[in-house]
Structures are given as structure tokens and as C-alpha cells.
């Protein structure tokens, strides 16, 4: 009888540990997203990506539609080449969609915002997004502002 209750509590302990791992997997980390392996990859070139990182979110109208999969430098154009992984459920994004890099809040992380175009054809694996807008670099903006202000005073 003693042995039986020991086994039951051990079983409960192991089960609780596995449940904890499951909670960490599903509720805390982003494992649930990896199940969506039907996604497809498109490429976009930006003049400047600012603080964009691999795994940064890609959104359309504020809804997350993918992630940045890879960032590299195009050796010919000296532009940043960003590979975007779009989720398979969003398979009707027009080919003339525009991609811009925005900042979430003043100090927040940077993300790519997509704005849908009007083409009848849709983006597919390996497509290139031509319409891109580089990241807003705060120092440049402030520099330009000060410069124009100084010019105005003359």
C-alpha cells in the first residue's frame, strides 16, 4: 500500500514537471509558431535597415504575418537584403506590396510593415518586394532638422 501511494505521487511529480515544460513551450516561448511550416520566403532590399534584427516581426495593418528570416548585404548595390518568412495562411499578398521599416514606440524594437498593393498576382516563394522604404534613423532626422533650422535663421 505504501509502495502504491509512492508510485502515485512520483507519477504526479513527473506529470507536473512535464506540464511545466509544456507551459514553458506553449505559453512562454514561441514554439507554437514553429508548427506553421507552410510559410514562404520573399526578399526585400532596403537602403538602411536601422536596428532591424533576425526574427523581428513583419506585420500588415498591425497583424503579424511573418518574421525576418535573414539579413545580408547585397555586394553589388550595397543595400541590405532582408529575407522575410511569411506565414502560409497569408498567401494572397499582392506583388506590388510596399515594405517599410518602422519603430514600435520611440525606443521600441523595429519591425517591417507591409502595405498591400493592387496587383492581381500574389507573392510566392522567392518573390522580390521592390517598393521599400528605409528605416528612419533618428540622428539623421534630428541632423536635418537642425540644419534646416539653421538655414532658416539666415
Amino acid at each position, binding site marked *: 500500500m505504501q509502495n502504491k501511494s509512492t508510485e502515485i505521487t512520483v507519477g504526479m*511529480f513527473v506529470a507536473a514537471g512535464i506540464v511545466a*515544460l509544456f507551459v514553458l513551450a506553449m505559453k*512562454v516561448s514561441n514554439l507554437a509558431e514553429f508548427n506553421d511550416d507552410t510559410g514562404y520566403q520573399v526578399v526585400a532590399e532596403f537602403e538602411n535597415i536601422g536596428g532591424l534584427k533576425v526574427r523581428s516581426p513583419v506585420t500588415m495593418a498591425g497583424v503579424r504575418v511573418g518574421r525576418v528570416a535573414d539579413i545580408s548585404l547585397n555586394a553589388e548595390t550595397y543595400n541590405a537584403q532582408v529575407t522575410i518568412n511569411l506565414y502560409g495562411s497569408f498567401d494572397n499578398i499582392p506583388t506590388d506590396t510596399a515594405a517599410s521599416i518602422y519603430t514600435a514606440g520611440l525606443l521600441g524594437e523595429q519591425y517591417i510593415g507591409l502595405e498591400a498593393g493592387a496587383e492581381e498576382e500574389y507573392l510566392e516563394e522567392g518573390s522580390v518586394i521592390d517598393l521599400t522604404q528605409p528605416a528612419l534613423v533618428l540622428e539623421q532626422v534630428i541632423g536635418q532638422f537642425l540644419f534646416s533650422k539653421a538655414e532658416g535663421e539666415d
Partner: protein
Amino acid sequence: MIDIIRSLGRWGLGSLQRLGRGHLFLFHVLAGVPGLFLRFSLVVQQLFSVGVLSVLLILISGLFVGMVLGLQGYNTLVDFGAEESLGVLVSLSLVRELGPVVAGLLFAGRAGSALTAEIGLMKSTEQLSGMEMMAVDPLRRIIAPRFLAGLISMPLLAALFSAVGIYGGFLVGHGLLGVDDGAFWSQMQVKTDWYGDVLNGVIKSIVFGFVVTWIALFEGYDATPTSEGVGRATTRTVVHSAFAILGLDFVLTALMFGEG
């Protein structure tokens, strides 16, 4: 002068011998582990005393560590208007570091010291030699089940610690300080990676479980068979386990997260 050098030499040789005995001991125990799957009830019994009895301690400490993280993190983050990142702060610090490390230290204090005292007492009351007389290998019958139980329990305890701690942080952050619960969870999910963060934490906890159980069992097995010797061995278990956990944690962190 010569005496000092001699005692230094004796100390060095003694430490080396101990290290060698410890490794031989580990190999013998590891050799005994596969046979355990035929008599798994031995392991279940040890899982109870090593794992189940540590659960309450782990749950309560995890809850409070998470709640403290929530409070302290909020106070710092609110200055930057970034209190929505509280979830990320709590989850990353728990999953990557505090979960495995604090659970490991508690495990060493709760289960490790008990293992050392138990084995040491078995040795001093000559139960182990008695077993050898009956042609039962104490390494296989006594030590190996405890070793496997420690190895299994530690990752489960660390996972429990992290999960409870995150809920503790959520309780304080959302219930007490009024952080938006949607932002808390969603930012956490965006920033916490399953492979990079959670699995690396699990690997850490397995390593700590291995080391702590090894140290505890060896200290017990190698203890001077007197009541004073057993007491010293128990102290050494806790001290050496703490050193090993903290040192290994630095090495593992450097390997896992160093490039980031």
C-alpha cells in the same frame, strides 16, 4: 620548511586521488544505470525521496523569486515607460538563469545533503559492506538508482521553478502593479525562444542535476565512516555543489549565450 612542502605535496596527492576515485566511482555508477530499467521500482522509490519531497520547496521559492523579479523589474522598467517588457524580463531571467541555478542550489541543499547523509550513514553502520558480503553490488543497488533519480528530477524541478516563477511575476505585475496582461504574455512569447532559451535552460538543469547528484553520492560513499565524517561530507556536498553549479553556469552561459 620541508614539512610545509611535504604537507603541500600530501594535500595535492590527496586531492588528485580523490578526483580519481570520484571519476572511477562515476564510471561504475554509469555502468549500473542501464540495468536499472529492469528494476525501475528502485528508481521510483528514489524519485519520491529525491524529487517529490523537493517539490514544495521548489514551488514556494519559485513563486517568491518570480514575485520579487516582478516587483524589482517593474521599478526599473517603469522609469523608461517600458513596463510592458516585464514579462520578457521575468521569463528570460527565470528560464535562462534563475530556474536552473536556484533550483540546482535548492536541490543540492534539500536532496543532495540528504543523499550524502543517507549513504554516509549506510557506510558507517556497515550496511554497504554487508551488501558486498551478500554479493550485492551497493553501487548498482543503492547508488545507481539515486543517481538516475537525481538526473531525472532536476530538469523537472527546474521547469516547475521557472513556470511557477513566471506566474508569480505575472501575479505581481498584473494583479498588484497593473501591467496589461496581454502585453505581458505576448511580449514574452515574442522574445523567448524555445530552442535558444527554454531548451538551453533545460540542458543547464540536466548538467546541474548530473553534477549535484554525483557530488552528493560520492561524498557520501567516500565519507569517513564516523558521525563527524558524515557531517563533514554533508557540508562538503552543499559547498562543492554550489561552487560547481555557479562555475558551470558561467561556462554554459558563455557557450550558449556568449555570441548574442
